[in-house]
C-alpha cells in the first residue's frame, strides 16, 4: 500500500497526430488537495478522463487509488467520486431519489443508504426539501448536494471539474469548507477551477500549458518562483506561453 493516491508517469493521449496530453508526470498524496489548472484547451479534461478510467491513454503509465488505468479501470470507477459544474445530478429526480440512485449505482446496501441519507440531509439542512425536485434548488445548494453525493460511497479520491463556476461568493466558501471536511476523512481531492483565489486553497497546484505540465508546486513556492503576489499573476505568466489556439 503506497501513500500516493495518484501516480502518473509520462502519460500521453494523441488524437489523429494531435498531442492533447503530452507526457505528463506527477504524484498526488493521500488526503491532499491537488489543484489541476490550465487554460481552456490545455488538455485538462482529456487528462482527467484518463485518470477516471473513461479514456485509454496512447502511452505512459498511471495508477489511481492503487489501480492500473489500462487493466483495472472498472476498479478505478468504483473507488473514485466525480462531480462537475456541467453535469452532476438529475434535475427531474428529487433530492432523495438522486441520493438513492447514485448510492445504488455504487452498490451500497439499502439499509446503509437509508441511514446515510438521513445523516446527509441533516448535515446539509435539507430535511424539508428532501422530496423536492433537484431542478428547483438554487445552484449553490445543488453543487453542495452534488459534492455530498459524489463522496457518498466513501471513495478514495474525488475528482471535481470546476465545481464552483457561477456560484455566489458565500456558497463558494461553504463549498471549500466541505472539501476540507472530506480531506479530514482521508479523501484525496483533485480539483480544477478558474477562480485563482481557490488555487490558494490547494496543497499543491499544477498548471498545464499545451498538453504539458509547466509548473507544479505549492501556491507559496510558485509565487516565490515567479515573483508574483498572487496565483492569478502566476497563472497569467505561465498560461500566456501557450502557442496552441485551443
Amino acid at each position, binding site marked *: 500500500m503506497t501513500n500516493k493516491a495518484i501516480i502518473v508517469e509520462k502519460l500521453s493521449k494523441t488524437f489523429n497526430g494531435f498531442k492533447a496530453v503530452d507526457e505528463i508526470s506527477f504524484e498526488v498524496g493521500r488526503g491532499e488537495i491537488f489543484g489541476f489548472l490550465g487554460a*481552456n484547451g490545455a488538455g485538462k479534461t482529456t487528462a482527467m478522463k484518463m485518470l477516471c478510467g473513461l479514456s485509454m491513454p496512447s502511452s505512459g503509465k498511471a495508477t489511481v487509488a492503487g489501480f492500473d488505468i489500462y487493466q483495472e479501470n472498472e476498479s478505478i470507477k468504483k473507488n473514485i467520486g466525480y462531480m462537475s*459544474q456541467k453535469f452532476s445530478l438529475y434535475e427531474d429526480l428529487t433530492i432523495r431519489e438522486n441520493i438513492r440512485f447514485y448510492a445504488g449505482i455504487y452498490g451500497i446496501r439499502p439499509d446503509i443508504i437509508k441511514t446515510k441519507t438521513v445523516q446527509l440531509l441533516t448535515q446539509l439542512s435539507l430535511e424539508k426539501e428532501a422530496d423536492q425536485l433537484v431542478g428547483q434548488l438554487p*445552484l449553490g445548494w445543488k453543487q453542495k448536494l452534488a459534492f455530498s453525493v459524489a463522496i457518498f460511497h466513501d471513495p478514495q479520491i474525488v475528482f471535481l471539474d470546476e465545481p464552483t463556476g457561477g456560484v*455566489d461568493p458565500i456558497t463558494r466558501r461553504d463549498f471549500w469548507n466541505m472539501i476540507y471536511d472530506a480531506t479530514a476523512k482521508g479523501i484525496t481531492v483533485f480539483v480544477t477551477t*478558474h477562480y485563482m483565489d481557490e488555487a490558494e486553497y490547494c496543497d499543491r497546484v499544477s498548471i498545464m500549458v499545451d498538453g504539458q505540465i509547466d509548473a507544479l508546486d505549492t501556491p507559496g513556492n510558485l509565487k516565490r518562483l515567479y515573483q508574483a503576489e498572487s496565483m492569478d499573476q502566476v497563472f*497569467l505568466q505561465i498560461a*500566456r506561453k501557450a502557442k496552441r489556439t*485551443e
Partner: protein
Amino acid sequence: MEKYHSEQASIVVSSVSKSYTSGKTVVKALDNISFEVEKGSLFGLIGPDGAGKTTLFRILTSLLLFDKGKALVDGFDVISGYKEIRKRIGYMPGRFSLYADLTVQENLNFFASIFETTIDENYDLIKGIYAQIEPFKNRRAGKLSGGMKQKLALSCALIHRPSVLFLDEPTTGVDAVSRKEFWDMLKGLKNKGITILVSTPYMDEANLCDKVALIQSGSILNIDTPHNITHTFSKTIYRIKGRDMQALLLQARQWDFAEQVYPFGEYHHAVIRQQSTELHFPEGVEASRIHPGIEDVFIDLMRSHDQ
C-alpha cells in the same frame, strides 16, 4: 412608433418585476428592479447564477414579458417597440446559440443577411475579433473550441452594428487569460460608441466596468462605479495569515472584535465590528488592514440582505 427622449440613457429599467411559477412555488426572478445605463458606457451586472441576470437580459432584448414596471432600450419601449429594438441590439446569450452544422463563415453570413447587411459592410467593427477565427472560417461552428465559439458568437452579435450590446455571462467557464482578452475586446467596442450591458459571476471583473449593479436573488444590492462601491464601504477589513490557515479560521471566528471571518485566497479576511477600538491579534498571526474589494462588499451585502 413613439420614441422616448433620452439624451444620456441607453437603457432605462424602472420598477421591473417578474415572477415564475415552478410547481406550486412562486419564484420572484426580479423584484422591483430599477437602473439606467448611460450611452456608450460599459455596465456590469455582477451576481451569481440564479440572481435574475438572464431574466433581465431576456426582458431587455424583448424576448420575455414581465409583470410590472417599464423598460426602454435605445429610446424604445421593450414591449410596444420590440421591432425597433430587435434591429438595434446585439445579444449574446449565455448558452452557445449559433448553428452547429453551419461553418463559421456561414453563421456570420446568415446573421448579416437577416439584418440585411453584409460582412464586408461592417468588417471594420468585427475585424479585431473575427480575424482571430478567420483561419477556421470553413470549420463547422459545432467543432470549434470554447474560446473560438465565443469569438464567433460575439462577431455574429455585432455584424449589424448594434447600438446596444447585451452579453450574458460571456466569460463563465473561461480561463483567466482568455477572460482578460475578452475584456480588452469589450473595451475596444465601447470606444467605438457601443453601449454594453454585460453580466458575470466573477466579482473581480466588476473593476473593468464603468458602473456595476450587484444583484442577488432578484434584487439589486448596490449600484455605483466600482471605485465608489468599495470606497464608500464603511466597515474595516483586516487580512490575516497564520501557519495553519484552517485552525486560524476557526479561532478567528471566536474573536469578539471580528464580525465575520472568511477565506480569501492566501489570507482570511476579518470584518471588524464597528465599535471595536482595540484589536489584539494573537501572536504568530500576521494582520494588516486592507481596502475592501468588490467581493468583500458583495459578501457583506448578501449577509445583511438575507437577514
